[in-house]
């Protein structure tokens, strides 16, 4: 046998990605057996009934089949602004959707991204420092691949985190340096925690090279305040860390106290020496927000304060993959320059977008309140992103039963939840959490009309589970 399991790259074996791990696989098995499954394991809006926005789909359909543009009857099926936009994007390509573009992405689209960033932040943005990628995840992997030289290199990652980071660091043979978010402070980030984590890592001989922030957070949803971002940037400046700003949920904000503010804007606002002295990579995507176009695989990263020779090397690696897929690049262009008031499609676009965002805001509340009404469940409010991350206070009886079943406690709970209700979540251990504290991550994406039933179903299961495992035990024994 040429390829034995034992001979595989250890880094591959070590890496974990719970979002499509054990729970998801079990849910898929049950689905095949005919059970109705509600997949809330991944931020995949269209899979749960969210409709794609009409305008971008019209534009891309025309780009897929440009011969339609020559047909005199095309106006019967497509509005004039979609037709114009399709022609515009096709003119930016060198041969339509089927030709490899520049390895960094179509220059015309990157220019539109730069203009978007400038409008959003009030500071100029250079298209040459913007790379389009097949999803933001690919961009994260590319940057970490540049930064991690070996296990001596550490990357500061929030706990809980989206496990793309832990999986990628594993695969690249680096070291994950955790910094704990504070659940009792709405998952806030305390710079003292950062300092402690870095000191500890260095005492173990690890060279801490970069810091990841996910803002709004995943799975935690918290939106960082401007003050917090300033502290973080100062910290990165002092400790010489490159900051990876995962901002893919920047359109998903469900409270008004802390609107989204980009790391780049805060950095530029801080002025010298920080604005020239901190290296920052900012990530965005078409998969989230109110677009939810996960299946397109479209994303970008913008580099700030990266020396030209380094940018060249990153370009070199990007060129090995030839180019990101062109359809998604067009989605990205459309996302950063959507229909404007006065455009034929504007009203429909605004209506669809608003509808989705307002519903997400309502669902965030429904879910948080729903979880908080359950026994032994405490849930911070979902300030942003697409998830709810309730804490499940498992009674000792449940911990024991989990041990006997050979399962991590939150995996045990989530499997029981799945089997009882068909709700497929991701156990908190997949994201990292404080020792002995358990969570699960679910999305706020199920259709609004189905939410009450789903929350009832959860509550019923949970309260019965707690009753069952508290029976004869209870906290007094502790």
């Amino acid at each position, binding site marked *: 046998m040429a390829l034995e399991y034992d001979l595989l790259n250890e880094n591959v074996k070590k890496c974990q990605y719970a979002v499509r791990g054990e729970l998801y696989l079990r849910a898929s098995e049950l689905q095949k057996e005919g059970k109705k499954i509600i997949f809330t394991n991944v931020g995949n809006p269209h899979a749960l009934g969210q409709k794609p926005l009409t305008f971008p789909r019209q534009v891309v359909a025309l780009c897929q*089949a440009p011969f339609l543009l020559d047909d005199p009857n095309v106006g019967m099926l497509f509005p004039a602004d979609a037709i114009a936009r399709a022609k515009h994007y096709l003119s930016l390509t060198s041969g339509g959707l089927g030709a490899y573009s520049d390895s960094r992405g179509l220059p015309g689209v990157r220019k539109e991204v730069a203009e978007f960033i400038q409008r959003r932040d009030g500071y100029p943005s250079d298209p040459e420092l913007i790379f389009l990628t*097949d999803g933001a995840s690919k961009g994260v992997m590319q940057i970490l691949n540049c930064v991690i030289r070996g296990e001596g290199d550490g990357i500061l990652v929030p706990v809980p985190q989206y496990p793309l980071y832990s999986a990628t660091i594993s695969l690249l043979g680096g070291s994950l340096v955790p910094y704990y978010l504070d659940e009792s402070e709405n998952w806030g980030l305390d710079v003292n925690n950062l300092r402690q984590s870095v000191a500890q890592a260095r005492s173990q001989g690890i060279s801490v090279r970069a810091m990841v922030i996910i803002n709004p957070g995943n799975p935690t949803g918290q939106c960082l305040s401007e003050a917090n971002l300033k502290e973080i940037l100062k910290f990165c400046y002092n400790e010489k860390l490159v900051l990876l700003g995962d901002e893919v949920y920047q359109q998903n904000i469900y409270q008004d106290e802390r609107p989204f503010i980009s790391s780049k804007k805060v950095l530029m606002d801080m002025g010298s020496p920080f604005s020239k002295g901190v290296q920052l990579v900012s990530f965005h995507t078409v998969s989230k927000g109110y677009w939810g176009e996960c299946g397109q695989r479209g994303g970008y990263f913008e580099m700030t304060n990266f020396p030209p020779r380094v940018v060249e090397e990153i370009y070199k690696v990007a060129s090995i993959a030839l180019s990101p897929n062109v359809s998604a690049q067009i989605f990205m262009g459309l996302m950063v320059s959507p229909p404007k008031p006065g455009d034929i499609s504007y009203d429909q676009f605004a209506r669809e977008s608003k509808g989705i965002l307002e519903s997400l805001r309502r669902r965030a509340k429904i879910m948080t309140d729903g979880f908080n009404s359950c026994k032994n469940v405490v849930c911070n409010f979902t300030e942003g992103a697409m998830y709810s991350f309730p804490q499940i206070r498992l009674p000792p009886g449940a911990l024991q039963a989990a041990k006997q079943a050979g399962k991590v406690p939150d995996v045990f709970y989530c499997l029981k939840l799945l089997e009882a209700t068909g709700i497929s979540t991701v156990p908190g251990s997949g994201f990292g959490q404080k020792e002995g504290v358990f969570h699960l991550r679910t999305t706020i994406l199920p259709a609004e009309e189905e939410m009450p039933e789903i929350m009832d179903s959860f509550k019923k299961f949970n309260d019965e589970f707690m009753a069952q495992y508290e029976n004869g035990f209870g906290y007094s024994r502790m």
Partner: protein
Amino acid sequence: MRRFVIGQAKNLIDQTRRRQRHHKSLRLLSLLAASDSALVLSSPRLFSSSSDMSGSGSDSSSSSLPVTLDSLNPKVLKCEYAVRGEIVNIAQKLQEDLKINKDAYPFDEIIYCNIGNPQSLGQQPITFFREVLALCSHTALLDESATHGLFSSDSIDRAWKILDQIPGKATGAYSHSQGIKGLRDAIAAGIEARDGFPADPNDIFMTDGASPGVHMMMQLLISSEKDGILCPIPQYPLYSASIALHGGSLVPYYLDEASGWGLEISELKKQLEDARSKGITVRALAVINPGNPTGQVLAEENQREIVDFCKKEGLVLLADEVYQENVYVPDKKFHSFKKVARSMGYGENDVCLVSFQSISKGYYGECGKRGGYMEVTGFTSDVRAQIYKLASVNLCSNISGQILASLVMSPPKPGDDSYESYIAEKEGILSSLAKRAKTLEEALNKLEGVTCNRAEGAMYLFPCINLPQKAIAAAEAAKTAPDAFYCKRLLNATGIVVVPGSGFRQVPGTWHFRCTILPQEEKIPAIVNRLTEFHKNFMDEFRN
């Protein structure tokens, strides 16, 4: 105390690294394409960096920043990819300048013959495929009566069929990490129809182009530089770059130019033993069939030898078959390695074989869509679980590319509404490719000191240029590889962009360049004329 020591150690490492790079570039000046364990692929790019060895430029002033050239992952620094390397950068600058300084150049356009990107040079996509994609992009079209006037009836049927295979008809949702099941079923059926042996949809992993699949396998197979992958020389530099990125060792096996780029088992054996004697564990054999850049199509007998060799030596066979639909000669035919292995009597569990296919080549040429798959056979379930896990970290490949891959593997059949036009488009493209291959090959063979093997398949010609000593000396003086020197001169004189052979590796002391056969037919005569004239002038200047 420890922090101070760490700081000192870091400085030492940085200094050593700087010195190593300086030595590396000096070594390369003296002999290119050294056949040592070759983690470094020689390429013009390294020469551009040697001029910055003094440490000048903005990098040194920003040495207080954490990420600078010196602190990058050395594997990133090591890897090269000539297809979009230095020559292309120069060409792009020229192209920009052409817009404003039209009269400064003896040509009025840049012709990119460096990359297999058919639709960027005027090749049209297959109408039926794009109809289906458009309908799947904007499914509301399927509810409009006007659609029937604009789309063929079978494209509408196929779109419905595909959408029914996607949960909720949601083409914007992440799919199963291996790709949508129904589409994998179609691909498996297509593989069976092609080979006459069954294929399992669960063996199929759909990827954003074939390249990510290659990377996944390298990641799986390579733990350190002690792990080697046998690669053909010349090779498509994805392999060398990927091996470098994953920290492995490229074990070269030389294709024989004199016998039409033949693959000799004796050469495989020799290189394998050589690598093993150096302490390298050779894990896999990469075969590109039809070849890139060399274009040869393997004879079935040869393929059987290769399968037996892999079985005997415990190697995973990585079969890059992305050009399977590009065969231009009547005396050769494409046979998949899967078919060959099965027809030899090897069953599902007997040979570890990974077969790569892409939507970028063939007659469909859909490079920008990024679609492809690998069919993974012969692995135990625990190994396959690891492949699945790797695929899942990226969630899934783009849906539009997945749909296209299924269409490529199950195109219109006789009797279908679109069949006639589909066949006309397909055969038009393939016959034109064959014609262009022949025309360019003949033209190249007429040049002084140039011999060019025929392109049996794929999309490239890889002529051998016997460069006069004077030219080689001039190249050395210009601190450039001789073939890169020739290619730069060619670019500056004619606007034609080709890739120097050193980007693909070659027998030391031989020089080649890779040129695609993709410019449209009407451009070919002008290309031939300009190339011929340039070459004559070049030889006049440098003839011994």
